[in-house]
């Protein structure tokens, strides 16, 4: 089983990410679907697609639930069986997992998996409140916690235990903004300096504005099929060879440790074992940098370095486009943006581009093995997927 393709990605689409005025989430999803259909002329979407799974976090943003059917409708796929998948910021990472289940079950031959969120028309306090709904209500929300606050707890603990510094956090932001400057679909396409990051205003100490990902509108999708059918649709499939998914307590306060995300470690182990690859084999990775500390912890949880060394890895430049293991070549959640429900399959989209040589100015030369790491809530849900060039 090790290294055997579970499913193959034969196409992918991404809307522009950013503050997209005058468009609803469903319209953004249609943008992503259009790109995926255009990339794959051999696919007849109405005839070939057997199911649609759509990651979407919150009906509060647009006063619109029932997103599976809404997305199916606007992608022109009615009466396709469609379902919304909700797992906070990992909604479409989990949708991807559901897509894999559906193909491996034998019930589906070709499925679309995607995600969408429209957020920027809401005020920052409203978005702060809506996002916090994915955290524990009776103790954490009730005590005024926010998402930046929950990751700030991890940052404080990481700094206390390992001596990680605010400057090391800022290096993650600078790198990801540089990568975003090379991505025409990124929300923020301009570089920032270390000083700008370090002097930005405090959101939840020790995290500052430039430690936080962006409130963004966007949608993403990928099309999966059984590996033996992939060549029918494309000459350049990308195989998913490992998939991991795990959960942890909704309350961060209950955890044994605050310097690592256990669900991500478990998901990573599952995905690596299934794929038969080691962390050192990964050529390019998209990780869940909802906050800079989250990328540093991801390096450690994914085995790119030892526990406690993530800050130094960020500082070393080895995760930049020129380093040994380029991370968040798209700009990540930090600069490409984080329309929460869309993020998991937006990561898959970037890996698809990288492994098919379509990543333009941010292309990692000869990338063969890719990894995506998508975390929902403050380490409550995690999915890890491993990809190989077909």
């Amino acid at each position, binding site marked *: 089983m090790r290294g055997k393709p579970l499913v193959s990605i034969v196409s992918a689409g991404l809307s522009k990410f950013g503050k997209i005025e005058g468009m609803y989430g469903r319209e953004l999803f249609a943008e992503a679907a259009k790109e995926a259909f255009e990339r794959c002329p051999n696919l007849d979407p109405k005839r070939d697609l057997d199911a649609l799974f759509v990651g979407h976090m919150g009906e509060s943003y647009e006063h619109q639930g029932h997103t599976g059917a809404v997305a199916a409708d606007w992608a022109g796929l009615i009466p396709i069986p469609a379902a919304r998948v909700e797992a906070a910021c990992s909604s479409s990472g989990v949708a991807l997992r559901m897509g894999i289940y559906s193909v491996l079950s034998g019930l589906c031959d070709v499925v679309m998996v995607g995600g969408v969120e429209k957020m920027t028309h809401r005020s920052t*306090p409203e978005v702060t409140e809506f996002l916090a709904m994915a955290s524990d209500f009776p*103790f954490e929300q009730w005590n*005024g916690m926010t998402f930046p606050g929950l990751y700030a*707890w991890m940052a*404080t603990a990481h700094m*206390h235990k390992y001596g990680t510094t605010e400057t090391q956090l800022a290096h993650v932001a600078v790198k990801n903004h540089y990568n975003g400057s090379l991505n025409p679909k990124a929300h923020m396409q301009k570089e920032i300096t270390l000083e700008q990051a370090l002097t930005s205003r405090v959101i939840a100490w020790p995290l500052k504005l430039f430690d936080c990902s962006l409130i963004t509108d966007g949608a993403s999708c990928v099309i999966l099929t059984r590996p033996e059918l992939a060549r029918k649709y494309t000459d350049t499939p990308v195989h998913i060879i490992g998939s991991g998914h795990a959960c942890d307590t909704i309350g961060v306060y209950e955890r044994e440790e605050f310097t690592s995300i256990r669900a991500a470690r478990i998901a990573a182990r599952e995905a690596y074992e299934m794929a038969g690859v080691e962390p050192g084999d990964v050529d390019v990775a998209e990780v869940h940098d909802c906050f800079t500390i989250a990328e540093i912890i991801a390096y450690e949880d994914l085995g790119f370095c030892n526990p406690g060394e993530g800050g130094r890895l960020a500082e070393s430049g080895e995760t930049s486009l020129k380093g040994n293991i380029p991370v968040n070549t798209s700009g990540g959640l930090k600069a490409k943006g984080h329309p929460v429900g869309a993020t998991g399959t937006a990561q898959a989209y970037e890996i698809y581009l990288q492994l098919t040589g379509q990543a333009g100015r941010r292309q990692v030369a000869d990338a063969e093995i890719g990894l995506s790491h998508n975390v929902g809530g403050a380490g409550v849900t995690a999915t890890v997927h491993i990809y190989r060039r077909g």
Partner: protein
Amino acid sequence: MQQPFTIEQFYRNIAQKKLTGGKCLKCGKIHVPPRSLCDSCLSKEFEWVELAGTGKLLTYTVIHVAPPQFQSMAPYAVGIIQLENGVKIPGIIREVPFEQIRVGMQLTIDYEAASTGHQWPQWPRYYFKPVPA
């Protein structure tokens, strides 16, 4: 009749200025808040225990950008406190300047009858403050 092992009952006890948990009669794990199904051994048998409200600060943050319900309080500090028996509980930290808050410092619980005035449950509140000298 035994009180139900619920979050609501936990906060009713907070209103009586008591920090309580549910102790699993099978494996001994103390749950704060109480649960009716032990997440460790799946037992359904518990007893209430009253906990000492003093412990060590494990980590903290200072919230500057707050949800609407808390905006009037911002900035405010929130931490995770580990009580003497190992139980962890989050809480707002008061009565100490932010710059004097340290991981590892001793904090103790106190109570108030506050509510945010929003359409949230009208629970009483607890918070943490430095141990008086």
